[in-house]
């Protein structure tokens, strides 16, 4: 038995306070899910369970059972599970689905990742007990993104780059490269495979968004390099980090038998997944650990992998992680980088934190298909250092290294 991906779609990713900022995250999730179900040709009764990843539930009107809310809107009365492993969430949701499929408890699943960072409310706990006198202090949970007792993620990324000898110039170059690679892919129409255009209302205007909003391919490395570091980090700047974004992603998974029964199109095989942890400040290198673990579980070597996606939570993540995977050998490192995030990454496209995991996986699936097949590994880091990685395989003439 193998597990196959039969549908994979996403909304375009919106800029902070951009075109999707007034759309409810629930609607984003439903939009992506519908598009993925349609692409898979999966009707009612053909999905056995829903798994949802989401990181900041406070952005929803009701911050609970997000999965069930989505299911009901889709008309799918099946059991739902909503998980939070920070940015790992959607790939963890995918892994839960994989478990269920492997156990034989379910034969198909809908997996969704969703995040609306523009809609995260400011918080206060003071009003619950009442304020008798004095100010009310509002906390912004996404400024900076941090956890009590730990450094902000911007600092961890910067420290990781320093520890592994990745100079700032390369962080900035990789960031600019992300925009340029995105622009080349967008010009070639590559994102049409994965993006389900969405009508969205902002203010009084309703527009059809069909493209990611954030990329700025007209910049330059030198301009990026002029930006000052943020949150007390040494090298993390707004230029080598993604923004705070809005978007949703969805995939339909089935066992190969079920897909055959239903005549569903097979985009790729989901070969293996793995989750890891490391010291809480290790977000920049944990994708490398996750990739190593998933390779080991599937008895594959990196040489046998055609494409790599490492989420650009910061430009440091793909750089540090590939350097580790290359065992510090510079020549090997540069060769790995050349096949990493080939159509750009979160620095350009954006990083709706609970949605990106499935985005990097589907971007890679479609690119493997365009290349005539092959294997790819996608990895993402999550807050306080958890990591998820997944290997996919697309059959075809060009498959495998």
């Amino acid at each position, binding site marked *: 038995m193998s597990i196959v991906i039969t549908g994979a779609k996403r909304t375009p990713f919106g800029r902070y306070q951009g075109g999707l900022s007034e759309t409810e995250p629930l609607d984003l999730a439903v939009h992506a899910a519908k598009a993925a179900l349609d692409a898979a040709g999966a009707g009612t009764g053909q999905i056995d369970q829903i798994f949802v990843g989401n990181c900041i539930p406070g952005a929803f009107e009701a911050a609970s059972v997000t999965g069930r809310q989505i299911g009901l809107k889709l008309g799918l009365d099946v059991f739902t599970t909503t998980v939070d492993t920070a940015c790992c969430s959607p790939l963890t949701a995918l892994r839960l689905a994989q478990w269920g499929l492997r156990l034989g408890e379910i034969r198909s699943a809908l997996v969704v990742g969703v995040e609306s960072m523009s809609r995260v409310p400011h918080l206060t706990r003071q009003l619950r007990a009442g304020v008798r006198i004095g100010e009310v202090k509002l906390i912004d949970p996404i400024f900076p993104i941090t956890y009590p007792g730990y450094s902000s993620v911007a600092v961890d990324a910067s420290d990781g780059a320093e520890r592994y000898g990745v100079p700032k110039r390369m962080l900035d170059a990789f960031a600019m490269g*992300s925009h340029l690679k995105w622009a080349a892919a967008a010009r070639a129409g590559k994102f049409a495979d994965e993006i389900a255009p969405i009508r969205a209302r902002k203010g009084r205007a309703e527009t059809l968004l069909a493209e990611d909003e954030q990329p700025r391919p007209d910049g330059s490395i030198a301009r990026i390099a002029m930006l000052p570091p943020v949150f007390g980090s040494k090298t993390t700047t707004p230029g080598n980090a993604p923004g705070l974004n809005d978007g949703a992603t969805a995939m339909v998974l089935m066992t190969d038998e079920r897909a055959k029964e239903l005549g569903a199109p097979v985009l790729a095989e989901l070969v293996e997944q793995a989750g890891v942890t490391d010291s809480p400040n290790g977000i920049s290198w944990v994708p490398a650990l996750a990739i190593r673990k998933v390779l080991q579980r599937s008895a594959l070597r990196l040489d046998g992998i055609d494409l790599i996606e490492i989420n650009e939570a910061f430009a440091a993540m793909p750089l540090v992680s590939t350097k580790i995977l290359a065992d510090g050998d510079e020549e090997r490192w540069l060769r790995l*980088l050349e096949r990493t995030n080939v159509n750009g990454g979160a620095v350009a496209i954006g990083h709706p934190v609970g949605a990106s995991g499935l985005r990097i996986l589907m971007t890679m699936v479609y690119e493997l298909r365009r290349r005539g097949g092959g294997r790819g590994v996608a990895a993402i880091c999550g807050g306080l250092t958890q990591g998820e990685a997944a290997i996919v395989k697309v059959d075809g003439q060009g498959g495998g290294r």
Partner: protein
Amino acid sequence: MSELRYERDGASGLVTITIDTAGPVNAIGGEFVAELFAAVERAAADGAKGLMLVSGKPKSFLDGANLLEIRKSASAFELGHLLDKLHDALAALARSPFPVVAVVQDQTALGGGCELLLWCCDHVFATEGSRIGLPEVNVGLFPAAGGMEALRRLAGMETMLAIVLGGRTMPAGELAGLGIVTVAPAKELRARAREWLLAHPGQVNRNLDPARKAVDEARRGEWPAMIAEARRRSCVCPEKPWFRAALDALEEGLSLPFEQAVRAERKHFAPLIEHPNVQNKIDLFLNMTGVAPRLAAVAADKARPVDSLAVMGAGLMGRGIAQVCADAGMRVLLFDVDEATARAGRERIGAELEPLVKKGKWTAERRDKLLGRIEPGADRRALARVPLVIESVFEDLALKRKVLAEIRAASPDIVFASNTSTLPMNELAEGSDHPELVVGMHYFSPVPLMPLLEVVRGPRTSPEALATAVAAGRRQKKTVIVVGDGPGFYTSRTFGVFVLTGFILAELGLDPWEVDRLAVEAGFPQGPLNVYGTAGGNVIYHACMAMKERMGERLDVPPSLERMWKAGYVGAGKPCFYKEKMEPDRTALEHLGRRPGAKPPEPAEAKEMLLLAMTNQAFQCIDEGVLDDFFTVDLGAVLGIGVPDCWHGPARYASQRGLRVVRDRLRVLHDKYGLACFRPAREFDRLIACGADRALV
């Protein structure tokens, strides 16, 4: 109105328009043009008896197009539209029934601002210190708002061509001879302007007056030859299309009445903005003003106050450094081997400024104040009174170390800045007390004219010493770049490769004068072999040898360099590649070797080799930690060592060709010629792996 203020004096009927656009200097954008047109119509409707143009900015009357605005859209259609609208407004002002004057009070009227004066103003009242000019070619454009036509009529074809093609800006006094500019003290300007307006009702704009002929009408027959000569001089480099566009526009206008001639300039002017090299020029200008001051990021609070400093060595460079310091208001202790030599140095500075004072470019007061701030010294103990000493003695490591030791003895904690062009700070400071107080301040000759200062941070240089050097450089109004340590730092090393590649091309069998011609065609201000003579063969030879000693096989020094030097072909009075008036000195050929079996490169390849050798060297500097950012790469190369500004610098040049293409071409050249300067820098691999094949700067 937001960019102009309109005021009408009811009693006299005179209208005053005060130009005050958004931004630090007055600039012409869409909003300004619309408002100017409306103001002219309003003045006509008000029955104005005269119109006076003044500026609300302290230092700027009106300084050309809003470059940010036109660069942002970079559209020929939009620029053409803006120009049409500007023509409409200026034409309306010129045709107005009332006289028009401008008052320029210690301000600048540049580009379109100057054209406004030339086309529309019946008279201009300016202070002596005001500066007026047409610098458009410096940003890859040309004066297309009547400037060329109006100035040609006033000053004659030859003068106009020199000003326009040279991108010149002049003190108002220099224009007084044209008959439309009156120089007067600031406090009299407005009153005299008012008087003039009231005394000239119904003045017909001179450009529209069919009876008024060009001042050199009698030489009309010579105009084509003058234009042809200008083409020969200015259009050598096809990468600078603005010169050709200017001359094409001028030629077309010769047979047309004034306004039609000006209108016809549009089709030559507007498309320029879409040319990448024009965009490079504009970007370079914007970066020089906007980015450069933020580039050398140092701990400014650690800088010692540099109201005074010492200069050690009163040679050509030392005098230049002393001059720019004193001109910027710093007190300078000038030392040389003895007090008499130092005193003679100061006198020579005065003598060298004399022609500027005579020509009216400098006031005598400015020179006298400057000289007053230079104190020739004998007693080294005086060094204890100043925070910084800049040494500019002969380029010899042992000598410089000796000077450093003497200075340390006299003033143990003075910041010691060396104006060496090649010697690494680390070697200089070796064995001295306080190596952390040693820093490089590499000036370019002639110091008062060259805008760049390369500050060199040695591996031990302290933030304090670095900040002090940068602060001193900024005070001297230099564009300061900070680079890392190494033989020849960034600029000398990259400049050296330019000259050496010139020799190598000659050794490969190209005629040396053809090498220089090709370099100029590629956009360089001078060819590499010409530079060898003008910069001084002695200096170049010693610099190259000092770098070779330290760089080993990373630097190829062709044997011909040594042969030329040994034969005494070093320029500056001695023979070299050129005799007087750029006549080739063919005896130089006797000292040039030929590479056995070499085939001379095709002209296109030779030009590319010069550009790629320098570009690659800049990227090798990144590999070695001498450089870290691409603004520094480009500004340093253009301002310091003559990399063609139409390319914006090595980083933009590589970006525009694409890094993969550049790396591939370097590999081909390296395989073909086996020269280290073409071994692709590792940085190309890193950038390409990062997906950044272009967009470096």
